[in-house]
């Protein structure tokens, strides 16, 4: 089963929840870091890396011995990534999505593709658990291809915990789309509530089963509780606002290892998610 952990607002505790769930998981489990712009799971899980490989996107290359500068490739490109000048064809790689439309459109077969590196995927183990991480190269704008590569790498076997990036746009969609359940982590503040509403709109648009976990419970106000009650969204866990958790996090230590009294909270959360997925499967 694939459980994605997302948030809308950044810094609400996605990674904290994901790594603690991983540590209390009873069977086969994999942690997949899909926050490829800023992956942090590694800092806590200290994995032994078994291998890594480059993640690439196709980039068109024009063969000028065949090109007639007819402009069909420019017309075919919906991303305005191609400009055709009298004696050259300019490809703007940061706008190119690597869809291949230009290759298909060229009547002279003058366009081929080369693989352009934009990041890498690392995989290994952390204790009994599997570890996969995507990392976007600095300066690259588009993270979804790296995220999709991580998703392909982990597959669907056992428990897969996907640590998603913040926000609600394309990188998050790539991370959470077609997962079995999306847990939305928020904090009980006006910013947390506002961005939770956006995240709920996103999971509803994608038709994903979802519930909320509140981090730093006790801080702020009751807005998140009132909203969830009004919208019929379950709150499956409330992680207390405890300075010791923050200090463990600061130094890259896992809360359930540092504070064993927190174990039941995460065990219960993982069971609750499993039950909701099972109930849905049966229905």
């Amino acid at each position, binding site marked *: 089963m694939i459980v994605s952990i997302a948030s809308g607002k950044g810094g609400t505790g996605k990674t904290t929840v994901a790594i603690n769930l991983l540590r209390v998981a009873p069977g086969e489990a994999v942690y997949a870091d899909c926050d490829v712009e800023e992956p*942090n799971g590694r800092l806590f899980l200290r994995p032994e890396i078994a291998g890594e490989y480059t993640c690439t996107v196709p980039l068109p290359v024009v063969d000028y011995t065949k090109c007639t500068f007819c402009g069909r490739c420019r017309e075919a490109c919906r991303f305005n990534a191609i400009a055709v000048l009298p004696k050259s064809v300019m490809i703007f790689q940061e706008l190119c999505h690597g869809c291949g439309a230009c290759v298909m459109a060229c009547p002279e077969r003058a366009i081929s593709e080369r693989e352009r590196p934009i990041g890498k995927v690392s995989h290994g183990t952390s204790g009994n658990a599997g570890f996969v991480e995507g990392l976007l190269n600095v300066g690259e704008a588009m993270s979804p291809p790296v995220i999709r590569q991580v998703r392909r790498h982990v597959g669907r076997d056992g428990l897969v915990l996907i640590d998603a990036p*913040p926000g609600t746009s394309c990188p998050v969609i790539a991370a959470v789309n077609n997962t079995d359940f999306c847990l939305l982590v928020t904090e009980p503040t006006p910013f947390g509530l506002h961005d939770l509403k956006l995240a709920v709109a996103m999971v509803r648009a994608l038709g994903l089963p979802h519930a909320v976990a509140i981090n730093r419970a006790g801080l*702020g106000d009751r807005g998140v509780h009132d909203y969830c009650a009004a919208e019929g969204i379950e709150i499956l866990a409330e992680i207390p606002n405890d300075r010791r958790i923050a200090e463990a996090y600061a130094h890259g230590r896992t809360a359930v290892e540092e504070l064993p009294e927190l174990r039941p909270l995460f065990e219960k959360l993982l069971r609750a998610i499993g039950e909701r997925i099972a109930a849905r499967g049966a229905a």
Partner: protein
Amino acid sequence: MKQLAIVSGKGGTGKTTLTAAFAALADNAVMADCDVDAADLHLILAPEIGERHSFAGGLTATIDSEACVICGQCREMCRFDAIDETFTVDAAACEGCGVCYDVCPAGAVTLTNEVAGEWYVSSTRFGPMVHAALNVAQENSGKLVAQVRQRAREIAEADGRELIIIDGSPGIGCPVISSLTGVDAVLVCTEPTLSGQHDLERVLELAAHFDVPALVCVNKADLAPDMTEAIVAHSEEKGARFVGTIPYDETVVAAMIAARALSEHEPSPAREAVEEIWRTVRQILNGEA
């Protein structure tokens, strides 16, 4: 006219709290909320919307099952796994490249251009603000950021405003690149955690990549003083200027709940620290420090 972008790498470190405080402290600025994915600045600045514009997104394909001849070419050619075995397009996975439209021999594919979001020009108690709301599950946030910044520049020029304060988004991808290219300085607000340090490092590399001078401040600095020290030393090594720390202070959340900028709220250690950082940043922007 100067442009200051506030970013963080890691989310939730206090970008918007800082931006709102700077908005209140600056006397002649335009605010640009470039965290178009999860914009929060309006919760504090309470903008009165003056102009409203729609923002066109990319294309999305749909397949007419009546016209479809089930040849399978679209599925084979789609590189985004957006067409399933029943020849239904997953709108969330579709990138709008049009390859399916181009290959379909039956004319069964339609491409539609949807409204991806809105952007606004508003007035606030601290001056003009340009902001946006991207609809959920949309792309092109970098383009929307560019739109917001362009309008903020036009307003600053027309009104003789001295500064544009840009609230950025977390990460290092397209909206962040779009938020920080060409600014006079980028202020990175981080926190004293291993994650904060790691993410700061990548944002500083990004700033260096685009040749933007970087400033660093550490929020909740007293939560892990050892980490704060390490971050300060490391930032200076990387050529960034350290401009101050903010202590952990629950007044920050109280101000947020009251929908007030920290510098409008009752005196507190965090407020004092943010005001000190503002003075330093302003001097740096004016070339006085």
